[in-house]
């Protein structure tokens, strides 16, 4: 069936931490095709904002036909979304991008800040032994929901939760090991993980972010620099929306 733009019904929305919201949407056509690591583009109702906001899938419930988005209020668009209530509607486009490439072997899932949500769906989909490393600035969210899926390790900048420092500090402190890393989070964190994975010789998939317009690979807004000349661009640019957002860490420059 492919990508569609639909008007999704809001099933519920809750504030799960300061400025962080969990939104459940009825989105049948999109749900049936979606996998962990993909995202949807969410549209503003306010006509002054033309561009959709890309938000990762934190949950995909095929039976209920619902998607779960967990996002932080970062500006006007996400602020608008935070006002949505059960019974409202919101336009979304999806499913966009490619999910994580699920590999065999012991997995380390790493989420930092607002990069944590997509790891939850991945944790559910991955059928293997998992260590889950979650990095926070201070306030925790979603961490308890990871418990059923693996051993959860926390880090926080203020040291209030788990290892003081970042996710790599936690990995080192807790001697977390594995065969493949899946990570999502701010670029500096991903840069650190890429380097750590290279040092440790662990395969590593990372999910990237960039400003997007089309979300479907047409406008070339959202490129990242790749090590090799890629097939689509013929220059060292891959489209995060269409060729990613998940890439093998060694294939992209951060």
């Amino acid at each position: 069936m492919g990508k569609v733009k639909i008007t999704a019904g809001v099933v519920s929305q809750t504030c799960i931490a300061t400025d962080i919201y969990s939104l459940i949407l009825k989105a049948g056509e999109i749900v049936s095709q979606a996998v962990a690591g993909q995202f949807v583009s969410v549209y503003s109702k306010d006509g002054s904002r033309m561009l959709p906001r890309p938000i990762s899938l934190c949950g995909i419930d095929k039976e209920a036909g619902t998607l779960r988005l967990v996002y932080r209020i970062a500006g006007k668009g996400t602020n608008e979304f935070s006002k949505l209530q059960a019974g409202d509607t919101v336009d979304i486009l999806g499913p966009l991008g490619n999910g994580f490439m699920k590999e065999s072997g012991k997995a380390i899932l790493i989420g930092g800040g607002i990069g944590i949500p997509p790891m939850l769906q991945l944790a559910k989909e991955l059928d293997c032994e998992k260590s889950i490393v979650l990095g926070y600035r201070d306030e925790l969210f979603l961490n308890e929901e990871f418990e059923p899926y693996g051993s959860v390790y926390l880090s926080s900048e203020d040291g209030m939760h788990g290892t003081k420092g970042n996710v790599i500090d936690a990995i080192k402190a807790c001697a977390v090991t594995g065969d493949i890393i899946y990570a999502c989070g701010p670029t500096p964190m991903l840069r650190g993980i890429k380097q750590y994975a290279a040092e440790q010789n662990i395969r590593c998939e990372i999910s990237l972010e960039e400003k997007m317009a089309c979300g479907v690979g047409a406008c070339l807004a959202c490129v990242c620099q790749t090590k090799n000349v890629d097939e689509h661009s013929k220059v060292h640019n891959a489209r995060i929306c269409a060729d990613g957002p998940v890439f093998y860490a060694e294939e992209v420059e951060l």
Partner: protein
Amino acid sequence: MSKVNMAVNIAGVEWKNPITVASGTFGSGMEYSEFVDLNRLGAVTTKGVANVPWPGNPTPRIAETYGGMMNAIGLQNPGIDTFIKRDLPFLAKYDTKVIVNVCGKSKEDYIDVVERLADTDIDMLEMNVSCPNVKEGGIAFGQKPEALYDITQAVKKVAKQPVIMKLSPNVTDITEMARAAEAGGADALSLINTLTGMKIDVKRRTFAVKNKTAGVSGPAIHPIAVRMVFQVANAVKLPIIGMGGIATTEDALEMILAGASAIAVGTANFNNPYATVEIADGIEKYLIENQIDDINELIGCVK
């Protein structure tokens, strides 16, 4: 829904309806073909293509603006070879006209691409003269009448398809540019390209787009585009493809009433991937409701 004539003739090429897409907003049609039956479009206009692959600008390449957006993609493209090998065969499968948008850093670049396309079965060429001009000293061909005249002539000499010159709105007098293109032998005009803008991130105190300046597009610029289409339609005889902020049927009709023979949907695709076909249907409905048999009766009828 087909008692009315929606077909228009642009420089000898018959489009089944007056709807195309604005270059750079629709890739080469592939990506949006998941949403839109390309057979429904009068023409598909491709992303700008150069003689060799261009890497484009560093990111962030875009920013949202009030009622629109700005972009400095920097004309990233895979080069004419890949384009001919990969994108043209894809487009050839559809019953729609193919317009190839051409960019270059020097006159020779443009000629190179146009020559390479001469023996392909594309339908029209659109010259993006707002590309960074390196050889002639950095100013775009689109901002000096003499330079525009010159490049139009040069391209026309080698082109085997009708040539559309795409005008930049960043000029004092758009009719002067239109006349230069007409004098140079252009077969049609398209307008407008983006208006140069800038956005500053006040939190980080830096430019929102890495390139500092970027081209503003979307509904915000529509009234400026309508004005320019009107002025040009009343200054030259060439058919005009009108674009700039078209998002609804009304927006498209405004352009046509102002003098455009066809229209292109750009930024609106990002907001609504179905915009093109919705507009095609909307125009047909308008014709029927207003008992107008032929879209051509509307072109430039507001004077």
